[in-house]
């Protein structure tokens, strides 16, 4: 109880974001379109396709006949190349995804009084999405190193370049990234973070005048 009271006394009377206010547009950013949601396309797209193609490489003996029927020449090595290079690209770009995410979250002003579809408030959603983002980056880096060991050392001379456990972890990550992405989508579509129209409406502006 005492701690709780003390923490309230330490809250600044004015939000520190006010110091930057003259630099920011109606979307709360110093530029017109947010960067993080655009880098996310690469993180998710590259990760999902990387795992999907390693899975296709692992199940290659089952698919061989289908590709022969389609007259589409394929090699198992080719599938695993997609799995490796897409993951490598994903690992590289995700550092920027997370960095841009933190910059834009520092400037976030969620709409007050909103509870998301999964029952969280804005601060809880931002904390889960922020910490979750760092954890996902760590997992992607670890999986890239793991994938590299499989490709260049442990399974160098084997047809199936990845362990079943690796694919299982990848598929589990689909679920975690899906949940994580839902939190991010809620920050935009429900909490109105960095959406000019939502912020203008919350400020009482008439969109017919503000966004003709």
């Amino acid at each position, binding site marked *: 109880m005492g701690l709780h009271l003390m923490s309230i006394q330490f809250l600044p009377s004015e939000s520190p974001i006010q110091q930057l206010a003259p630099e920011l547009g109606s*979307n709360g950013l110093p530029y*017109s*379109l*947010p960067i993080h*949601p*655009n880098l*996310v*396309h*690469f993180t*998710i*797209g*590259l990760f*999902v*396709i990387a795992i999907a*193609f390693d899975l296709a490489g692992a199940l290659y003996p089952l698919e061989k006949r289908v590709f022969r029927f389609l007259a589409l*020449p394929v*090699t198992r090595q*080719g*599938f695993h*190349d*997609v799995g490796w*290079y*897409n993951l490598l*690209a994903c690992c590289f770009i995700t550092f920027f995804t997370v960095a841009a995410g933190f910059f834009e979250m520092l400037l976030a002003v969620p*709409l007050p009084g*909103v509870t998301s*579809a999964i029952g969280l408030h804005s601060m809880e959603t931002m904390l889960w999405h922020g910490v979750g983002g760092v954890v996902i980056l760590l997992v992607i880096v670890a999986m890239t190193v793991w994938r590299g060991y499989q490709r260049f050392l442990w399974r160098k001379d084997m047809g199936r370049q990845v362990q079943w456990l690796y694919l299982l972890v990848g598929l589990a990550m689909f679920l975690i990234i899906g949940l994580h*992405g*839902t939190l991010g*989508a*809620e920050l*935009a*579509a*429900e909490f*109105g973070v*960095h*959406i*000019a*129209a*939502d912020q203008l*409406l*919350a400020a009482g502006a*008439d*969109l*017919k005048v503000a*966004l*003709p």
Partner: protein
Amino acid sequence: MFELLPPLNDHNLPWMDTLHPIVVHFVIAMGLITFVFDCIGIFARKPALFEVSFWNLLFATAAIFVAIIFGQVEAGLANPYGASSDILNLHSTIGWSLAGILSAMSAWRYVIRSKDPKQLPLPFLGAGGLLSALIVVQVTLGNQLIWVYGLHTVKVVEAMRAGLV
């Protein structure tokens, strides 16, 4: 007849959240990475990457048709206002054009790969550069619909239903 349609939620959608922006992950990322891997393949002499970009291009082409299906449904329910109507029209036109361009480039790439998978003619790289530029324009338009006009966001749908926009 209309009562057979599912009810719309506070995003003005029959499903939880917009699906088009999720499906376009695969068009944007796979389309642009194709060009990146083609460039590295040519300039760093790593022909193994041509196979990687071929599959990425094929996936982008498959994904764009799914993206268009969801895009059309969600555009139909978007109730654009002000300048966002024009942006949405342009976004739809470029979206359908991209489906044609991606299909043609996949076919072209299939022929190139059938002849010699270790070579990539420079005209294809040029076409890939133009495709990337068009994707960037398309993404910018889509960005404006959500980040400026907030289409399908709860706050804008609420204002729309109250007759404020």
